[in-house]
């Protein structure tokens, strides 16, 4: 195996990681910081992708589509928060699980109702198509580099919002003790609606950007949901830095696992056994990673101790 391929795969892993971060960013806010279990995160991701595809098809402009994805997902998020989530704050956490599970059904089938059962067309805009040549001669898709850039911007923005602003502090305070923060004069309900909508918008943005190089179809949000939870938990709930590091770890593990495990086993056994054991292990790899991280650091890599 050439070093250039290994280098390219490491780059792919990093890129995949940042893409995962982008997909998890909204959930970091809603789940990591506000402490809400939102299973419908994947649905908001799907809403973003569909909004982008529909608007891009209607107007011919990818960028209008991206704007639409933000708007549609944020609106959906705000509606969900006001109509459903807000009524559940005083309840058992598990009621959120049931309610947002119900929302998955509503969104999936609602989307299918509106857009039909067949995947939609959404493709990379001309300005970002093609590949650039990286040092070392690797051709790398421009669009993926653009995703890295957006992912890093989102990470920095979230980090600043949560760690450095008063709003961020108030959200976290609200998670610790909702009644108390209200008694201090903060309109926690409005704040939560805002943050939930922001989280939804981020999910929608990810749906549009990532959906562009994947399949825009009903059900596209489900794997995203699980992956996003994995990423956040590995990094430590509530930590933006953790989510980013977690995402990159997952990205690298998954990519390199897929790439290296089969050839690793090939040195020990027959080719076909190696392929099947290697691929089986590769598909388990991120879960093995998560279990190991949690066994040794029960609160994730950057989770608050205690």
């Amino acid at each position, binding site marked *: 195996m050439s070093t250039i391929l290994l280098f390219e795969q490491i780059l792919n892993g990093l890129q995949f990681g940042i893409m995962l971060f982008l997909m998890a960013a909204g959930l970091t806010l809603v*789940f990591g910081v506000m402490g809400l*279990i939102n299973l419908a995160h994947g649905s908001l991701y799907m809403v973003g992708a569909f909004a982008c595809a529909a608007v891009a098809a209607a107007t011919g402009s990818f960028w209008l589509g991206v704007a639409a994805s933000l708007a549609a997902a944020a609106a959906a998020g705000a509606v969900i928060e006001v109509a*459903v989530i807000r*009524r*559940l704050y005083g*309840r*058992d956490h*598990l*009621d959120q*699980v*049931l*309610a947002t*599970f*119900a*929302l*998955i*059904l*509503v*969104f*999936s*089938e*609602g989307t*299918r*109702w509106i857009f039909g059962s067949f995947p939609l067309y959404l493709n990379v805009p001309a300005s970002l198509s093609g590949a650039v040549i990286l040092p070392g001669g690797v051709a790398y898709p421009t669009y993926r580099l653009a995703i890295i850039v957006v992912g890093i911007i989102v990470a920095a923005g979230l980090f600043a919002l949560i760690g450095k602003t008063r709003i961020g502090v108030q959200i976290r305070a609200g998670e610790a003790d909702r009644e108390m923060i209200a008694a201090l004069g903060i309109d926690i309900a409005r704040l939560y609606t805002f943050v939930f909508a922001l989280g939804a918008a981020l999910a929608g943005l990810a749906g549009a950007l990532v959906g562009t190089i994947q399949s825009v179809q009903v059900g596209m949000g489900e794997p995203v949901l*699980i992956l996003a*939870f*994995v990423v956040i*938990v590995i990094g430590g*709930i509530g930590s933006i830095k953790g989510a980013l590091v977690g995402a990159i770890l997952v990205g690298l593990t998954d990519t390199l696992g897929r790439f290296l495990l089969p050839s690793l086993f090939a040195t020990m056994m027959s080719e076909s056994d190696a392929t*099947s054991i290697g*691929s*089986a292990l590769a*598909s*388990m790899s991120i*879960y*093995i990673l*998560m*279990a190991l991280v*949690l*066994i040794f650091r*029960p*609160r*994730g890599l950057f*989770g608050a101790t205690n």
Partner: protein
Amino acid sequence: MTRETTVNIALAIALLAVPIGAQFADHPFIITLSTKVAIFAIAGVGLNIALGYGGLISFGHAAFFGLGGYAAGILASQALNYEPLVTWPFEIQGTTQMLIIWPVALCICGAAALVIGAMSLRTGGVYFIMITLAFAQMIYYFAISWPAYGGEDGLSIYVRSKFPGLNTLDPITFFAICFALLIAVLGFSVLLTHSRFGLALSAARQNPQRLTSVGVRPFQVQLTAFVISGMITGLAGALYADLNRFVSPAMFSWHTSGEIMIFVILGGVGRLFGPLAGAALFILLEHLLGGITEFWQFLLGMLLLLIVLFARGGLIGLLAGGRGNV
């Protein structure tokens, strides 16, 4: 008698009456559906011990459901093919006897729950949710890609396992077996929650520090509950394999974990009959709505939303009020 007890008894009678009525009206499929309700209720009762009483939100109970199912499936299919299950160090034959399959399934699931639980209990809260999911997903992907027992295609067992003196292929008989087991695990669950152990378990959920300071290790209490919980869910898995005469890796998928959890929450977390109420309503809705429109899941979602918004404490809470078990 409290209102909740009345509701519980009514539910049990309803579950018994429906298939009996169906038997007379010659609607065998209603019996199958009722059996499915009973089986998922058993799985839910199992999960409820960990989740409701112990506060251990396991998102990985599909692991036990699937292991129970595969235990039954593999034993039966080996027996049907006359292939020994293990040849070394000594030969073990497959079997189609429920009375052998069940203990085997219980043991396997208990052992798995012991290992998974011991590792998972190092964490807590949301981390526990995710680490249990991780273990279940590992098994899921393993089952999908491991060719020996059919991989993602699953394993057909063609016949239903046997119970001495009964014709298990007769739907109503098989229902009766499942129903009896459901009542048994419900009974066990009542005793458990009111026992010394139940009190310690509920304290471990509410305040582990308090338990420690009276000299009891929360870890041991919670691990025991997790093992019991996994075993009961595994038993349900074994029955489910017999109901379908088929097992597949889908039993291990996170959808299954989610579904069992939804049954418990829908019925009412920590309510004795919650899992039964939840499973019954969900399966009923699935059955009734399916015929109405192609987009029936949209309606299902809407109905579930209404229930969660307006029924505090799940269905049992709606029907019986109160706070549930202490």
